[in-house]
């Protein structure tokens, strides 16, 4: 058996072994009445923007793609989702005071305008998450709403 074959077998075994370690991909319990859409009652256009570009990491309604089940990619995605939800979670909008909600939306506005959010890799994989200037304007307008 050549060393190349041995290496291939070793890598395959390693990759298979990694699949035994899967991160938590469940959705935390949510109060439907506590979501951004229920609390802030945004215009449908804004709700649509947030759903297609933000909700995978910033809500409890993550659409887990098939590759989120393949380690080690799954660990990275799960970590990003966990961090994203911790920072801003549109499913838990009722936890925020009006003042904190404005802060969060303003931050979202600035990050989208700066091209920092959605993350570049996410935008590359998810064409629907590539936001236009008009999309960014909708988020920014919401951050200034009384």
């Amino acid at each position, binding site marked *: 058996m050549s060393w190349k074959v041995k290496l291939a077998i070793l890598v395959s075994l390693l990759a298979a072994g990694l699949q035994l370690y899967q991160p938590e991909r469940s959705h935390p*319990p949510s*109060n439907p009445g506590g979501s951004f859409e229920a609390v802030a009652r945004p215009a449908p256009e804004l709700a649509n923007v947030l759903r297609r570009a933000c909700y995978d990491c910033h809500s409890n309604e993550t659409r887990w793609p098939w590759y989120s089940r393949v380690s080690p990619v799954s660990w990275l995605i799960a*970590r990003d989702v966990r961090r994203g939800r911790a920072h801003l979670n549109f499913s838990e909008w009722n*936890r*925020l*005071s009006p*003042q904190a909600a404005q802060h969060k939306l303003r931050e979202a506005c600035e990050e989208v305008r700066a091209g920092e959010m959605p993350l570049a890799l996410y935008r590359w994989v998810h064409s629907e998450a590539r936001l236009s200037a008009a999309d960014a304007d909708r988020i920014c307008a919401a951050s200034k709403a009384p």
Partner: protein
Amino acid sequence: MRHALIAIALGILAFGTGCQRKPSDVVDPAKLKVFEPLPQVVAASYGAPSEELIALGRMLYYDPRLSRSQQISCNTCHDLNKYGVDNEPTSEGHKGQKGDRNSPTVYNAAAQFAQFWDGRAPDVEEQAKGPVMNPVEMAMPSDKLVIAVLKSIPEYVDAFRRAFPKDKDPVNLDNMARAIGAFERRLLTPARWDKFLKGDAQALTSAEKAGLNVFLEAGCQTCHLGALLGGTMFQKLGLMKPYPDQSDPGRYRVTKNEADRMVFKVPMLRNVEKTAPYFHNGKVATLEQAVQEMADYQLGKTLSRKETEAIITFLKSLTGEIPFDYIKPPELPKSTARTPKPDLSD
């Protein structure tokens, strides 16, 4: 040759870890947008409180006759000379009973979006009624007894009349709470931090500004934002990994909603240096431990000793001035023969 390369690599690694980059003391103003200076007054929905209302509130705040034993006042657990706390994990109430949550400070508390660790009261007026009637705190069995005590003391009846001139029968529980709340709305502790936010770059030391940068880099302002660096939202304790002590379900007790299990109000960081011990259960004795546990459970980060120290250096700049003139204990009116006696019967 190979050994030489390994030695160089190890040398670089050792240098890199041994000499951690000193945090910058240049603060990006854009990152300060999440904060605000402390307001001068915390407005009430009913308008500006009168001096008579505040004076009544001050008397009531210090009066132990609002408790069943007539030994416990608001100030017993929220000591205004000690930054509004008693520095106990949980406070001792009626007949030595212990509460199940740490007594939070009353300083600046009125500016929070909700009161109590689980946010069950929307404002300080509503909050003020809670401990008076709580059986393990001041333990008054009914509002009737509270009113009987107050009505038995003519000076209180007069003070209520002056504070509520339009009310026919002003001595009642709601007005008592409103007066205490009015007093609490001015319990504010401006700090050097406020001067810094208003543009005085020299108000913080270089070390404090460097600590602020570590605080921001770690992401603490995700939850600790606004004028109080907290008190603007609820958050799950154990966001990144489960918090070990799950005995208190937090806001779940109020809403019975599974989504609110282990969710608590994010506490303020003003005067945090002075308000140990920490967390809802008061089980965290030091600020070092509190900062490290928050980073670990809420942000999924392990802070080095130097990072922790830097953050604490910044946090100490949030310690404000106690308004000693404002909190000066008033002379309390004397009880009369009609005043109900202390009750330590059960």
